[in-house]
């Protein structure tokens, strides 16, 4: 009798296992974030993308994420996710590049997607967004609205994405205002609200009347509003933090891309490729144009539309370097993608030095 009970138990166990086995045929998708999902900036937007995948594909997928993964720990974190059965893994910070490639080489049947990097392999795709397109639009707005002709720029680290952002901003501003100057403070952090606030205050004290930022917290916006100055938000629509003076925000929109890539795996059509899109691919959005006169808002919207349709390229040649010499034009009348992706020089009119 006891044997029978045991047997029944065992059968139940086997059945239990096998049903969960069926359920496990969901595609398991994982995300690795460099910051906390609560940063309301970069990692927050990636997580919004994850939630969009869950919403769009419902019970066909199961998603997991690891947040605040330090770069030196990412090797293990990514492999843990593989071992937990994830078949598609998005690693969302540049610092995860080598670890992603290492783990990918070990697990050829798992697909990887690495954000903002440049190395690919058979099962590692790369993706990034042309954030500089949004910066150009910001520059146009700032160039129109500044009275002091001084813009304050709170920057994080001198990596190509940030440098090309500063240049695009300046080019946009110069297109409508020849006398404009930009002051840059490197906060040397992606996220430290207090320090970002202090940086914004220092810039305002030194005469900037519009603040833009390439760091992730809404603190600079808030400081600008506290002094009645205009500002731009970063990564997500931050208008709630400064409703009276936010002009617009550059919004990272990973939703469509993530849904498309997960679908590709579901359909068996996933390929390793590089995606680098901006307004046209709906990877970068501008939040509504607010707190500005209608003509400036229209100009901003027109600029956005022109970039989206391809009529306008932020880095249209001739682009003058800091020393006044023309930058070699490797694209067709524009700087090519490689030049933008590895940008390590300032354009004319920027009064700052890059570490060489």
């Amino acid at each position: 009798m006891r044997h029978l009970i045991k047997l029944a138990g065992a059968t139940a166990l086997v059945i239990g296992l096998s049903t969960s086995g069926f359920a496990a045929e969901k595609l398991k998708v994982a995300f690795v974030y460099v910051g906390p999902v609560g940063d309301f900036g970069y990692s927050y937007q990636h997580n919004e993308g994850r939630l969009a995948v869950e919403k769009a594909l419902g019970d066909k997928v199961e998603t997991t994420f690891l947040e605040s993964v330090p770069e030196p720990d990412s090797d293990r974190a990514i492999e843990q996710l593989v071992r937990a059965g994830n078949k598609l893994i998005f690693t969302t910070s540049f610092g995860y590049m080598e670890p992603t490639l290492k783990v990918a080489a070990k697990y050829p049947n798992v697909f990887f997607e690495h954000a903002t990097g440049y190395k690919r392999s058979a099962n590692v795709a790369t993706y990034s967004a042309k954030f500089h397109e949004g910066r150009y639009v910001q520059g146009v707005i700032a160039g129109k609205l500044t009275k002091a002709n001084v813009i304050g720029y709170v920057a994080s680290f001198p990596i190509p994405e940030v440098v090309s952002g500063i240049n695009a901003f300046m080019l946009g501003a110069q297109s409508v205002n020849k006398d404009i100057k930009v002051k840059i403070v490197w906060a040397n952090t992606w996220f430290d609200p207090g320090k970002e606030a202090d940086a914004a205050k220092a810039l305002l004290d030194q005469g900037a009347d519009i603040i833009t930022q390439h760091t992730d917290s809404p603190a600079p916006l808030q400081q600008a509003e506290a002094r009645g100055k205009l500002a731009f938000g970063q990564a997500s629509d931050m208008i709630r933090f400064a409703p009276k003076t936010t002009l617009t925000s550059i919004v990272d929109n990973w939703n469509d891309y993530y849904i498309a890539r997960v679908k590709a795996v579901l359909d068996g059509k996933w390929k390793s490729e590089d995606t680098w899109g901006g307004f046209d691919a709906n990877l970068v959005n501008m939040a509504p144009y607010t707190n500005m006169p209608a003509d400036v808002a229209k100009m901003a919207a027109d600029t956005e539309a022109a970039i989206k349709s391809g009529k306008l390229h932020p880095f249209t040649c001739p682009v003058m370097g800091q020393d006044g010499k023309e930058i070699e034009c490797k694209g067709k009348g524009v700087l090519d993608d490689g030049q933008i992706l590895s940008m390590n020089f300032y354009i004319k009119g920027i009064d700052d030095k890059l570490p060489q």
Partner: protein
Amino acid sequence: MDFAAAIMITVITATTPLLIAALGELVVEKSGVLNLGIEGMMATGAACGFAAAILTGSTFVGVAAAIMAGMALSAVFAFLVLGLAANQVASGLALTIGGIGLSGLIGAGFVGTTRQPVPRFEFPDLSAVELLKDFPYISEIAGVLQFVFGQDPFVYVSLVLAGGIFWFLGRSRAGLLLKAIGENQVSAHSLGLKVVWTRFLAILFGGACAGLAGAYLSLVYTPFWSPGMTAGRGWIALALVVFASWRPVRLLFGAYFFGAATVLQLHAQAASLGIPAQLLSAFPYIATIIALVIMSVGRTSIGAPASLGTPFVPDR
């Protein structure tokens, strides 16, 4: 706004949370206990303060909640290091880890929520008063008065705390007893002083200050909550206590010195002097070391309480 005054206000905001947290830690260390959990208590204070302020709509309740949260965590620490004579350094570090995690759990529901910063005091503009408007230098005087009396309430609390602690440790009987306990716990015990009880109160006070400093971050400095917003300020507070040689007035100066250095390096960057940003960012830390070296020349003792960090277990 006057340029110098503007910079000074930025310095004051950057300094106040450091000062408040460091003052609390100073009292704790004077009693002979080293609490390395400031960062964790600050983080939890910031989260609880913001959460309570949002839920009740009251800044006062928020501040009270932050203080209570800091005290609650410090009570756990007190239980470990006083009740169980556990190692203070490790317990403090464990408290930091736990506190940072806890702050994330409490704050998670408040990401993206906003509220107005705690306002500064408004001092009436004298230059607008009919009777006084022809008085010489009236606008300058009005500016100075606005600067002196027109900060946020926390700034005055921090200054009062500094003065109060200076008086308490230097002039009051209770303060002398607390210092005696920190200097020599064994003799203090044999003299009949309540070593454990005194330290317990000191630790709670330190927790309250750390919680208050956290509330400053999420209610005044940058009025929102986000994970990791303390960004290492608890550690700086700890270093400032050492910088001050455990003396409250020197702590006041030390904190403002550090705050000024951090703000000045940002100004130096904005002025595009062509110095690498990393070097300027390192400036406050290097300047602090150099200042401490200069102040230390010729002194023999660094002023640390002699019983600092050693657990107290009475012989019988």
